[in-house]
């Protein structure tokens, strides 16, 4: 299963756990702390084509809306309905039950544009 160490990170604070050509995506613990009090998650629709670095999901806190960018390109194949039903789990478990969606990757080479946890940690 995924944890911070075995995930890749986008500079925009999303993580991706890559297994069998599918990226499971969520936001980093740092991001959930900064966003704080998540009250609404607008998930992408299954089947949507997403592009690395483009917004594909919105997280709303009490104060503001935050765009969530696709860390890799591909097609949305699964979404975490539990995060939409109970957005606070994204705060409580950003690297676990609070994952957001899964992308079937169209260009696995893009992973090289992502950061290791160590490198991400150094940037924040």
């Amino acid at each position, binding site marked *: 299963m995924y944890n911070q160490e075995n995930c890749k990170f986008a500079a925009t604070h999303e993580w991706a756990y890559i297994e069998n050509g599918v990226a499971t995506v969520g936001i980093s613990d740092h991001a959930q702390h900064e966003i704080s009090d998540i*009250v*609404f998650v607008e998930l992408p629709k299954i089947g949507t084509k997403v592009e690395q670095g483009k917004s594909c999901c919105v997280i*709303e*806190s009490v*104060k*503001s809306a935050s765009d969530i960018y696709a860390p890799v390109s591909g097609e949305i194949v699964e979404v975490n309905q539990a995060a*939409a039903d109970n957005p606070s789990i994204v705060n409580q478990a950003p690297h676990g039950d609070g994952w957001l969606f899964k992308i079937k990757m169209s260009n696995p080479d893009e992973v090289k544009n992502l950061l290791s946890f160590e490198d991400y940690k150094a940037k924040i």
Partner: protein
Amino acid sequence: MSDNLRKTPLYDACLKAGGRMVDFHGWLLPVQYESIIAEHKAVRNTAGLFDVSHMGQIIFKGEDAFKLLQNIATNNFKQEPGAGAYAHILDDNGGIIDDIIAFCLNPNEFLLVVNSATRFKDYNWFVKKSAGYKVEVTDVSDNYAMLALQGPKALDILENLIPQIKEIARFHIKQDKIFDASVYITRTGYTGEDGVEIMGSAETINKLFDWCLANGFTPCGLGARDVLRLEAGYLLSGSDMDESRNPYEASCGWVVKLKKAEDFTAKAKMAAVKEVGVKEKWTGFILQSAGVAREGCLIFKDGKQIGKLTSATFSPLFKGICAGYAPADLEEGAIVEIEVRGRKIPAKKIKMPFYKNRV
């Protein structure tokens, strides 16, 4: 953040308590501590503490102090030590310069608490309007730190420090002593809960901040304050009203006392507005499906744009709440649509406030 932001006398205390500081009209203030939702809950259920030292204080002093206040403000004040009231300050066209609370300290001296963003505009306006009056208008804002102590348990806790605090009536002021120093205590707030606001020296209010934290108050930031005030139906000066709106449009007709003996700025205009009625009013809506609207979102009815939100947030009590200017004849319970990032969310018009005042 920019170096020329101002710090309140409680800046270090807020930071030490875990405040996340942001630029609020040039002031560094905590937007939140641990969680806006937890802070909101603390104020609705127990007691919360807010640094509101950025608020302005202006004194009218002299034999015409009362006359000036009556002439520049819409409400009908009393020349009775301790008494206070909320009012709007209008420009000559009847547009709202600011909303204030003013208190009678003694028959010839009044304290006006004004918004921070409008403090200098207010002061200049008062000085201009005081020409020919026997009154001295002084901005004393820099002499005061100020805490808002709000919530159903706030006074119970404060009674241990200030035994007679519950004797202060709603919208009244009392000069008192805490930690051997003089303070002003007002039975007012911006949350829809009972509570007080206390003004005093930086040193005294810092001591009070520490005492409150040690005695069960939760430190709260601007984020929670905005949710609480919108739930309570309180306008935010500069967002929900400004010189382009009059008090009737702002759904605050009750603060315009056309029957008071004195003339006041734009009184005749306000009488005419009341007679004719307004086309648009500040109106509250609750979203009917998931989502959070924001200030500036457009309001639609039957596909046609009918207004724009001036305040909107997520309320832990009511979910998506918002308010803005919409046609005055829109019926209570009417369903409109609010466009949030390209998506139209149904919303129901409610009778303000969202949260019924306990106070």
